[in-house]
């Protein structure tokens, strides 16, 4: 049986999209379950004290998936929910990519790909130097794994045995132009990370039980950084988004298109 996905959370994302009529909605939909489990059950944080020294760090390296991050941060109380209505507006703090210093709870400004993992390596190393117990999580896009800097950081993390670092690849198989297999396949993905000396597990990234199980097994190896390959569907929950690459980033979304997205999401599956 196909696992139940979080329709309400996705509706929240559509509500935000509806205000700005632009954004990477399909990229946000593929990471919903992973982000929910992280913030509901895994990460230690204090929403009213975002810079709390002992917090776990979450870095959304695929910054274009920020609609999902904004919705969860607002839900957890990092900032008032009204901010969501000002997505991409001059009077708001939430841009099309998340920015450190502007958005409480955002650890690092991302949007340019290939930056999150090197940064995460530094954060995890600092934790080791200071003998802190916090953990660092970096969520990467699959297309992002085409960036060389990801693999420089992968080498560095395993050299230092950063078992306090976990990377998650949101393997939704589609990038802006189309299928990742046609643009530039990253296979064999599991073998690649294992050969870089990471401990790797693959999961269904829409199955909350499996996600929870994987996070609770961390670190997969006490001497290695952990990598979760999260198999997902880009745009999961809306047929149009799942099928159509043009929805990778969309601007000037029309009334009738918005209506169709809401209708499709509400559909019985």
């Amino acid at each position, binding site marked *: 049986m196909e696992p139940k996905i979080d329709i309400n959370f996705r509706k929240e994302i559509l509500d935000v999209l509806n205000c700005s009529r632009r954004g990477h909605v399909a990229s946000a939909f593929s990471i919903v379950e992973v982000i929910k489990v992280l913030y509901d059950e895994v990460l230690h944080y204090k929403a009213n004290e975002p810079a709390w020294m002992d917090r776990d760090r979450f870095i959304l390296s695929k910054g274009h998936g920020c609609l999902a991050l904004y919705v969860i941060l607002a839900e957890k109380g990092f900032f008032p929910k009204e901010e969501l209505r000002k997505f991409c507006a001059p009077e708001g703090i939430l841009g099309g990519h998340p920015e*450190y*210093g502007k958005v409480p709870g955002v*650890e*690092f*400004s991302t949007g*340019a790909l*290939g*930056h999150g*993992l*090197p*940064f*995460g*390596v*530094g*954060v*995890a*190393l*600092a*934790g*080791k*130097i*200071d003998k802190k117990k916090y953990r660092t999580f970096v969520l990467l896009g699959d297309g992002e794994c085409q960036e*060389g*800097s990801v693999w*420089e*950081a992968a*080498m*560095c993390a395993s*050299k230092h045995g950063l078992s306090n670092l976990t990377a998650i690849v949101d393997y939704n198989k589609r990038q802006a132009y189309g299928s990742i297999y046609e643009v530039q396949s990253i296979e064999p993905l599991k073998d690649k990370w294992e050969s870089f000396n990471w401990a790797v597990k693959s999961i269904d990234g829409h199955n909350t039980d499996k996600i929870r199980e994987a996070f609770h097994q961390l670190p997969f190896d006490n001497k290695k950084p952990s990598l979760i390959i999260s198999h997902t569907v880009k745009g999961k929950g809306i047929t149009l988004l799942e099928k159509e690459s043009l929805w990778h980033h969309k601007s000037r979304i029309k009334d009738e298109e918005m209506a169709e997205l809401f209708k499709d999401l509400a559909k019985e599956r």
Partner: protein
Amino acid sequence: MRKTCLNCIYELAKKDSRVVFIGSDIGAGTLDEFKRDFPDRFFMEGVSEQNIVGMAAGLALSGKIVYINTIATFMTRRCYEQILLDLALHHANVRLIGSGGGFVYGPLGATHEVIEDIAIMRVIPNMTVVAPADAEEMKRLMPQTLEWKGPIYIRLGKGGEPIVTLPELGFDIGEPILMKKGEDVLIISTGIMLGCCLQAEARLKKSGLSCGVLHVHTLKPLNEKVFLKEIKNANIIVTVEEHSIIGGLGEATAAIIAEANFKKAKRFKRLGVPDVFPEIYGSQDQLLEKYGLTADNIEDTVLKLREG
């Protein structure tokens, strides 16, 4: 200058546990004492500048003060987006120490020469850019890098440059130093070019011409007030830099002069490397000679401008 700089980092590490050092793949034995005394704060991470800068940002935003050293070309060009976004956008306390600024690696060709580093670093918001003239000035600079906010790019010379700076004139990041007070002429220099500028000044003085020499060790932030104060009284202004004439000291000075709208026009010339990849191999001195970055040419340039 590099040795002094690295020694200073070791000294800073001794007194401040926030100090971390990262190298890429630099000379064997570099900072051995640092590695011996603070092994958990010493990193040699291989030829991976993008990762090194990102990692430095992560360390800095976790409370560390990070010093990175590699060859200036790779320190600036190779990881430019990481410098701009990971460091500057985040006001990260990371110090980028670029070895072999300008033509130091002249025999190795265009891959290793760096004549555009100042331009590409200057244009980044929140960035500080410093090019000291000699090892003694480096000693005065380095302690100030500990508490300075945001990223700093420090351009190193070859090493063994004659000591031309003076301790009594002090040193503050961002404050140009008036090395010589003059009347009609002002020579403005940065980095190791100060040496030839002072030589040119001495020769011109012998022929009865009083020249000021302004040493701009910090190219950003640029204290425009001091610039204007010194420029105001000079009729002839020459800038001298071991750098492209595009985007460096010369252009910065030209902009200040243009916007000051002086009633009487200044006579002005930029000396630097023209808009080319260096056409010959050779020592730093041979390349400086080719592009007219010598005391002789500074002297000639001043005299020609004077003749009008």
